[in-house]
Every structure is written in C-alpha cells, then in structure tokens.
C-alpha cells in the first residue's frame, strides 16, 4: 500500500488505482502474420521483475486516465510517474 502521484490529480491512495502490468509491450503491428510463439510472448510472457519495473496504472476511482510508473517491486518505492506517450525516464 502506497501513495501514487497521479500526473493529472496529484497524490492519491493506491487503492484508488488499478495496475495494468508491465509497460511498453508493443501491440503487434500485423497480427495476422504472428506465429503462435509470438502471440504467446505478447499475451502471456512477462518479465515479472523483482526490482525496478516500468508499469501501467489507471486512476480507476479518479480521473480514469492511464499513465506509466517506475516502481521498485522489492520495496514498493516509486521512482517516477509519466504520462502515456512520454519517453520513459532513465532510472
């Protein structure tokens, strides 16, 4: 449990947000040409990092906007919050 600094609303309790998992997984440009292995990689395989992870969050009980966050999953410390489409910060 922690406080998240929503880029649109400011600091709010984590329970207002929902986590969308690993960020920057690019949607396949040509889905019809994907092999089963590539589909599995896109849909299911995750880095599930213990340490600094880039992830997507949604302010579900607030502005309902999506944004990205850099968080250390070993201690829940948040390093950065940035809007969708912005360049991920170097951590």
């Amino acid at each position: 449990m922690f406080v998240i600094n929503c880029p649109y609303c400011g600091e709010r309790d984590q329970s207002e947000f929902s986590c969308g998992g690993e960020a920057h997984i690019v949607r396949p440009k040509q889905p019809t040409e994907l092999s089963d292995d590539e589909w599995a990689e896109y849909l299911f395989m995750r880095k599930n990092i213990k340490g600094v992870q880039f992830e997507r969050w949604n302010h579900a009980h607030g502005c309902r906007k999506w944004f990205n966050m850099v968080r250390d999953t070993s201690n829940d410390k948040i390093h950065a919050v940035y809007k969708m489409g912005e360049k991920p910060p170097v951590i």
Partner: protein
Amino acid sequence: MKNKYSIFSLIKNAFSQHENWKQAWGNPEPKKEYEAVIVGGGGHGLATAYYLAKKHNMKNIAVLEKGWIGGGNTGRNTTIIRSNYLWDASAGLYDHALKIWENLSQELNYNIMFSQRGVMNLAHNLQDVRDLKRRTHANRLNGIDAVWLDTKQVKEFCPIINTSPDIRYPVLGGTLQRRAGTARHDAVAWGYARGADTMGVDIIQNCEVKGIKRNGDQVVGLDTTKGFIKTKKIGVVAAGHSSVIANMAGLKLPLESKPLQALVSEPVKPIIDTVVMSNAVHAYVSQSDKGELVIGAGTDAYISYTQRGSHDVVEGTLKAILELYPIFSRMKMLRQWGGIVDICPDASPIISKTNIKGLYFNCGWGTGGFKATPGSGDLFAHTIANDEPHKLNAAFNLNRFVSGDLVDEHGAAAVAH
C-alpha cells in the same frame, strides 16, 4: 528409516528430559556436483527431492534454500487442502495429491496433523448456485466427493454462519467436500526434509542461487552464494521468485508475483470445526489446533515482492468475515503476514520441461499451492527423472500458453484470485 519416531522413542526420550533427540536433518556443505539440484526448500521442493530419491533412485541430489526450509509460502499459507476443482486435468492433479495426503503421516513417520474436517464453499447469488452445483456434478464424475447443501444444511453443518436472508450477501447454499481439510504446514516441510535427508539428499540452507550456467541449450550448473555447483538437471520450485530464477536463464514465464495475505486471531475455544470459504465476498476461515482463527485474505492487485500486502485488502476480508460470522465481532487479530504468490493467467500451475535442456519449472501455483504439495512433488520428480511429464501433469506444461490449451480455473477455483 533411522531414528524412527514411535511411542517407545517418546518414552525413552522422556527419561532424558527430551534433550537427546537427534537432529532430524543435517546441515551439509554443498558438494561439487549433483545428479540433480532442486532450487527452493519449501514443501514442493522438499517433496520433489524426497520422491526423486524414493521412487526414482536418484540419491546424489541437493535442495538449495536461500533462507530456511519452510520459511517461505509453506509457512505462510492457510493450510487448506481440497481437490474439488472443476476441470478434469485439475481434478486429476489435486485429487492425486489428496490421496497422498491421506497416508502421508504414516509414510513419512512424521505427524503432519492431517485433519479431514471438510471444506465448505458458500454460494451467495444465483450464479454462484449454478456454478457450484455444476462443480459438484463435475467433481462426482471425476470420482471426487462433493455434495450440495441448501441454506438449512449449511447452518446445520456450521451453526455460527449468519444465514439470515437480509444480509448483503445472503447464503443461498454451499458445496461440501468431506475428505478435504487442513494439515500442519511446517510439519509437511519438516517431514519431507527428514525423509529426504534419511535417503541421502543434501538440504543446503542459506544458499541463494545467483545464476544459471548453460552450455548452448543444456544447463551445466548454478552459481550460488556458496560457490558454483555442477549439475545437468535443475528443478526450480521457487514459488513467487520463479520469474527471478527464470530471468537468470534467459527465460520468460507467464507469471505475475503478488502479495497474498493471511491473518490469525487470538486463540479461543473450539468454535468452528471445518473450513468455510466464500468466493463472492472473498473470505475464508478455519480454526487451528491452537485455537486461532486462520483467515485468508486476497492478493494485492499489483506486482510486488514485499511480503507485506495492503491494509485495505485485509479490511475488506474482515468486513465479509464479520457479516458472515457476527459472533467474531469482538475477536482480536494477533498476527498478519504476506507471502508472494506467482499467478498464471489461467490460475493453474506449471509443472513442465522448458526449451532449455535440464531446466524444469514447477511454479504458477498462485494462491493455492499448499494443498497440492505431495502430488506436485511426486509429479515433478517424475518429470525430472524421466525428462517427460507424468500423464497427470501433461496438461500443465509451459507450451499451453502457445497452443492455447489453457486450464482455466479462475472462476472455478472456489476463491477469486
């Protein structure tokens, strides 16, 4: 088995004030090379080593544990054992485990305090009723005992449940598996450790794996905090940390690790002699032999390795517990803790070979791995020894995420994940 425990050894040791009991397992330094190395000294890992030695005659094996044995999720779960899963593959897997549980204390010569006190799953709305009835039918077709109870029968079986029709989520009935129950979770790890050690397995504690060495697509050993260990077969049973080990081998798994919480109350006299679970309101409760209420809460909805969990999750569970059991309203909670669970997209485990030769994974048990401990160890040992899955774990391979042949137990697993 050396130093067999019995009434006679108990009497004999009573004369020496119980000060001369021999250590149940050793504390060896790692050898240079092993036939197989199991990563993770929890229940599943120790059971795997035990069955590798017992059924597959592999004696030169080691179990590596970064902390102490049974100190991870084995000692953190709510000890519930049941096999009333919906799909055939799951029913086969979990009932295989339940059948081993039924004779495990005798087999290990170690009292794991297995108690078949029954597990009841409650239905709170019409869809629950339909789903749970469907599941009892599916269970019975698979030879698993399951009965449907109406509200009156639920009240008779567990009188402290509030079955009033005017509560927010009224009890419309429930299913009961009488062969299900609980076991002492620490004793399961200790019993398997003692059994494996007796057959020559090296149990190496405080030894963390730092890297996996490969020669092409064949594993050749592990870097650990106690040096390099050579081996051609590595069985990873690292629960919440499975992805961390997989990343060392350059492998990605379909897992997300999240904190799952549980809590116990102050001890009280016996008040609930069964296990009651409720999917819709996410609350389950049983009572330990010490008298504590053992309550399971849900997972946090984000990846974290913190072994804590959020307060609001516990709060939600306790709200539900209080509505279902108003008698507990003045109970004080004694302890709360979290364990890291590795959840698969289909809420079913992975007991599988990988595309790296000699690297095997047993993971993805999510929120419900304890119940499967003996079966999981048995089937994983079979998979490692033969380099082929047993027919009972063939469906639980890694390739199902490529083929699409998932074993979707999400809604069916009796508790929401």
